[in-house]
């Protein structure tokens, strides 16, 4: 159970059987990691200059999201991700500008400026279910999505992700238990980055691994090196295959490490050992994939640099474009509560708009988000 599936070692040398993947797919995987780093960089700059309130660094964990993304098929599958999964969106060609629209909560944000940053929601070009702050709630929901597919006899599957901390939530327990009973076509992917904000995994559970928790629900549990995109791909794609074949769910633990703070407002030096960071720097998921791609002839150093520059430009342009957009109009406070705006909300909307038309006293202050 504590066995760790690995295909590329820390230097990018192949130590396991590599899945047969087209060059396009491999490069898209790589690019999505690079894009994630560029997005992270941009967000950090924006947060430091007070333009956005909050982001969640993905540094170190990107191979989990990228490898998993590549294993799913957006033409039939759904995603119920959590917030630390940027590469999954990039892999499936979610528009960076739309992502920044959410970071700024502007008038083109799919969440209409109602959610905090990094709470993405998309239906196109792939079904990325709206991210929720209350942790673990998406897990039983994802099971329901999968059961609906099964009920209609479709061959889709659902991928849902969550952090190690979230295995302690009620949603983890109910979601996995239901999935086991109904053999729902779903893949549960736990990103074990060893911390829940400041709480180390030791304080999260006494179980010998997260993968072993699968036993409690009668499904296979797989532990995979989360810094190895190919290994993650392999585990998720095997699990998705099982799901499609009606064999039920799988729990995958991707063992990785959160190199940055929990969020742009968090200072991990209070609680993370510096040595641990050093150790994991050597396991960088980007370099590992890059080295292997180069050794396989899929990539050159020059092309890699180009991709990085393209990504940096792309993110700068996307952020600038999003930043230029106005905030949502006042009326959006009152829509989408119900399909139709009921009379009491009509009345509130009217008085709110009138109040602020007369005297715009409410000032937009910078949000200093504490965590």
């Amino acid at each position, binding site marked *: 159970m504590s066995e760790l599936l690995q295909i590329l070692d820390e230097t990018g040398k192949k130590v396991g059987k590599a899945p047969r993947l087209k060059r396009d797919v491999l490069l898209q995987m790589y690019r999505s990691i690079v894009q994630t780093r560029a997005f992270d960089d941009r967000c950090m700059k924006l947060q430091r200059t007070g333009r956005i309130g909050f982001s969640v660094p993905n540094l170190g964990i990107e191979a989990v999201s990228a490898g998993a993304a590549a294993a799913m098929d957006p033409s039939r599958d*759904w995603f*119920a991700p959590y917030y630390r999964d940027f590469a999954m969106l990039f892999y499936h060609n979610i528009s960076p500008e739309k992502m920044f629209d959410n970071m700024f909560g502007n008038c083109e*944000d*799919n*969440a*209409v400026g*109602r*959610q905090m940053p990094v*709470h993405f*929601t*998309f*239906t196109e070009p792939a079904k990325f*279910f*709206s991210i*929720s702050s*209350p942790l673990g*709630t998406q*897990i*039983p*929901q*994802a*099971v*329901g*999505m*999968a*059961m*609906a*597919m099964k*009920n*209609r006899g479709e061959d889709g599957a659902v991928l849902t992700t969550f952090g190690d901390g979230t295995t302690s939530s*009620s*949603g983890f*327990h*109910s*979601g996995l*238990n*239901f999935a086991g*009973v109904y053999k729902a076509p779903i893949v549960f992917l736990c990103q074990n980055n060893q911390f829940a904000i400041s709480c180390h995994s030791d304080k999260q559970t006494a179980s010998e691994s997260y993968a072993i928790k699968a036993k409690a629900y009668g499904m296979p549990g797989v532990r995979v090196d989360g810094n190895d995109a190919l290994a993650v791909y392999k585990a998720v794609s095997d699990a998705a295959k099982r799901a499609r074949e009606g064999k039920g769910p799988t729990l995958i633990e991707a063992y990785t490490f959160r190199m940055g703070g929990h969020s742009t407002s968090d200072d991990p030096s209070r609680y993370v050992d510096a040595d641990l960071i050093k150790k994991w720097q050597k396991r960088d998921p980007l370099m590992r994939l890059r080295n292997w791609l180069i050794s396989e002839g899929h990539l050159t150093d020059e092309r890699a640099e180009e991709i990085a520059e393209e990504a940096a430009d792309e993110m700068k342009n996307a952020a600038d474009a999003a930043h230029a957009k106005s905030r949502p109009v006042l009326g959006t406070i009152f829509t*989408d*509560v*119900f*399909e139709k705006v*009921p*009379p*009491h*909300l009509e009345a509130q909307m009217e008085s709110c708009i009138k109040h602020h038309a007369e005297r715009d006293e409410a000032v937009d202050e910078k949000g200093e988000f504490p965590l």
Partner: protein
Amino acid sequence: MTELTLVQAVNDGLRSIMKEDDSVLVMGEDVGPKGGVFLATEKLTDEFGEERCFDTPLSEDGIIGVGVGMAMNGMKPVCEIQFQDFIFPAFDQIVSEAAKIRYRSGGQYTVPMVIRTPYGGGIKGGLYHSQSGEAYFAHTPGLKVVIPSTPYDAKGLLIASINDPDPVLFMEPKALYRAFREDVPSGIYEVELSKTRNVTEGGDVAVFCYGAMVPVCTDAAKRIKDSRNKDVRVVDLRTLMPLDEESVLQAARDCGRVVIVHEAPRFCGYGAELSALIAERAIESIEAPIKRVAGFDTPFPNTLENYYMPDARRVLDAIEEVLDF
């Protein structure tokens, strides 16, 4: 037309809509072969198969969470919570998720689901088989709250709730499950949500109530008619959120005297909102204190439940008080 009890009308409503609409399915603890502890789902598994009506693990969090996911992906789940008292493990899935998904996704994802649950006293169920939690839910934007008080309404409101594009908490007054029968049309019909019903017409006192308190208030109205020839307008709210505010205000203005009745504890109960609404928008018509007759601000007792729950006598006293003010 058949004469049905309220719980039979619920069963008939489920059966009728399941026949019409493949996407409707029923899930919950013991809803399958046993047909539910109150038999509200009797024979549905026989008739529609396990895919459409099925037992779940003992997890309200799971029942609602899974239901939300199904609803987002094309189904119309009707989830049963065996007793409303046991809905609280699912509180997060209801108030944080079901109620807010349309809003937070700008309408990209929606949750057309119904949560059915028996509520209220009357079966000697003590603290945990008697509660009335409507105020918790009516305070939650994004959720509709519906409570029928007759077999006809139960079926029609249930079908309207299932067809509604938003999540509806459908609370069934278990004290009325088998209290009386009424003609109920067969097949599909809807009773429109967010419309009150005047149980009696009258211009002397407006009495607002819902669920199992409707017959109690009607009884009190009859007694005051007999004893003092006063006409009470008993208003059955039927939908608590979104409330038909205009009808409530109209009744308050027409009568000038108001009594509000519910089983739930008074403090921060649903009646507080009705009173506040009137005190905010119709106070100029009000000629007496706005009285509330409610459960006491204690947990629900068992042996003494009949002393805890509002009865016709307590409602009558309140009516007399506002008349004599």
